[in-house]
């Protein structure tokens, strides 16, 4: 009855169109934000915006496996950590190129995802949640004990990365637009994967793994591949976060952070790709906004979450559906 996924649709094709439209609208809004912020004389929001976009990438990546593969990873913050420590480690050797940092972060993540994914995929459901948590915590404790990079205190970065020798990222606007570009690229990537043959197999395994085996698929290979892809995309978010904060710390990879990523995905709408982007924006903006209004913002945020679940089973996507703004059912 209550399986691990909300009823994310298998009928990807006709529903997708609406979501892509919603995503395009979101991206346009994102692109307009910095000029608007400058016009309102608050360029500072660009920096907050960058953080939100980076989390959106992570939420998107998590949705790829959570929404389409029923793999609820509770250790995904580890990949944020690999991405950000890739920046720290390379920069301590004087390598500041964003491309190389991305490559290094992705490589670290791929290896970690390959090993831990192969073990975790022996389990299912809540057991999978907990075993991914275990691996996430191991990564967390590993970085805590990594004295060379400040251990628990973290490691400050003296400057942001360069992009092919150009220091476009030094300006907050530059960093913002590079992050946005990467978000769009990752969205396109995930969207195409979901629509592809591979994506259909992945979704099929979520629906009924025994049936899939009986028609000739071995679920493990597909799930593991998706798991690795998701980890790699999340590490991109980590690289960007490190640049945004100019600081890395194991706090980036604590289980709280993994939990928050899940909250963003579920809040936005599981298995919709666009939803989790919206979820990340909503969660972080709300936090920012409520935090400014009241010292007890957690209370209000909590109430918001509970009401959301009780009255809109499919998160923000569900609300929009009901208002007729997004159509996802036939």
């Amino acid at each position, binding site marked *: 009855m209550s399986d691990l996924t909300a009823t994310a649709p298998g009928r990807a094709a006709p529903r997708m169109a609406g979501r892509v439209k919603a995503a395009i609208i979101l991206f346009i809004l994102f692109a307009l934000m910095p000029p608007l912020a400058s016009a309102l004389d608050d360029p500072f929001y660009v920096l907050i915006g960058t953080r939100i976009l980076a989390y959106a990438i992570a939420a998107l990546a998590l949705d790829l496996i959570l929404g389409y593969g029923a793999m609820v990873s509770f250790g995904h913050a580890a990949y944020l950590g690999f991405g950000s420590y890739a920046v720290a480690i390379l920069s301590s050797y004087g390598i500041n190129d964003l491309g190389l940092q991305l490559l290094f972060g992705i490589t670290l993540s791929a290896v970690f995802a390959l090993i831990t994914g192969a073990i975790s995929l022996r389990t299912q459901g809540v057991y999978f949640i907990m075993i991914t948590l275990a691996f996430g915590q191991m990564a967390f404790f590993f970085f805590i004990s990594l004295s060379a990079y400040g251990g628990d205190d973290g490691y400050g970065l003296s400057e942001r990365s360069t992009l092919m020798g150009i220091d476009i990222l030094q300006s907050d606007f530059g960093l913002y637009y590079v992050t946005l570009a990467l978000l769009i690229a990752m969205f396109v990537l995930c969207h195409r994967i979901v629509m592809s043959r591979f994506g259909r197999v992945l979704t099929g395994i979520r*629906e009924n793994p025994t049936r899939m085996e009986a028609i000739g698929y071995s679920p493990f290979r597909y799930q593991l591949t998706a798991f690795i892809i998701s980890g790699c995309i999340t590490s991109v978010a980590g690289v960007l976060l490190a640049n945004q904060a100019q600081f890395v710390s194991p706090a980036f990879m604590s289980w709280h952070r993994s939990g928050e990523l899940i909250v963003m995905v579920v809040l936005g709408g599981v298995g919709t790709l666009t939803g989790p982007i919206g979820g990340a924006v909503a969660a972080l903006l709300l936090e920012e906004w409520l935090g400014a209004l009241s010292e007890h913002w957690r209370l209000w945020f909590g109430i918001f979450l509970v009401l959301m679940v009780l009255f809109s089973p499919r998160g923000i996507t569900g609300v929009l559906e009901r208002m007729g703004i997004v159509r996802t059912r036939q």
Partner: protein
Amino acid sequence: MTGLDVKNLSKSFGALKVTDDVSLRVEPGEVHAIIGPNGAGKTTLISQLSGQLASDAGSVSIGDRDITHLSMPERVKLGLARSFQITSILPGFTALENVALAVQARRGSSFRFFGNVAGEAELNEAAMSALAEAGLDDRAEVLAKSLSHGEHRRLELAIALATDPKVLLLDEPLAGVGGEDAEAFVSRLQTFKGRFTMVLIEHDMDAVFALADRVSVLVYGKLIATGKPEDVRSDPAVRAAYLGEEEVA
């Protein structure tokens, strides 16, 4: 045409011997029915043949290929397909998508990350024709979870057909197919005769005797009889263990 050769297959759950030294030859192109009381081990046998359950002892081969140690997906690739007694479908997919996935498993790589699978005419056409063969083409666009029970049974068959099997293992395909529709269903199965080898488990004796070339009877995990339908039907041991009097009439 490929046959199926089963030698000394056994399986126990704890102390319970569910299949006990079962040996069986299914000739190429034959429809071979397996009947027997509830809990005799028929489904277990199918699961062993399809690779879903590992056998304790014995061997299975199709054609002259020994598949005893292959996994379920590997066996499917060699042409061994099964349907499930208890409906097992992808509930959130449409009927068409359910079947198209089965087609895809046999055609080209599934490690394609780009390209819109919903638009692949090649897959959809093959899937439609499998649906049509199972009599479900008019429900192609309906989500599988909103199909009725009888429709689920047809979907089971369509999926199995779509894997393009050489040997098809059918576990009670008629269960839940209503009286009126059952006859049509049997004649549909009849048209598959000769296209591939079939192992058929069924409690519907009308269907068994209409379709089967040979019948084996499994009781408490042991094969107690194999032979032509007429012979099995009149076998007193079979009557006592399974048929009773009413159904033969």
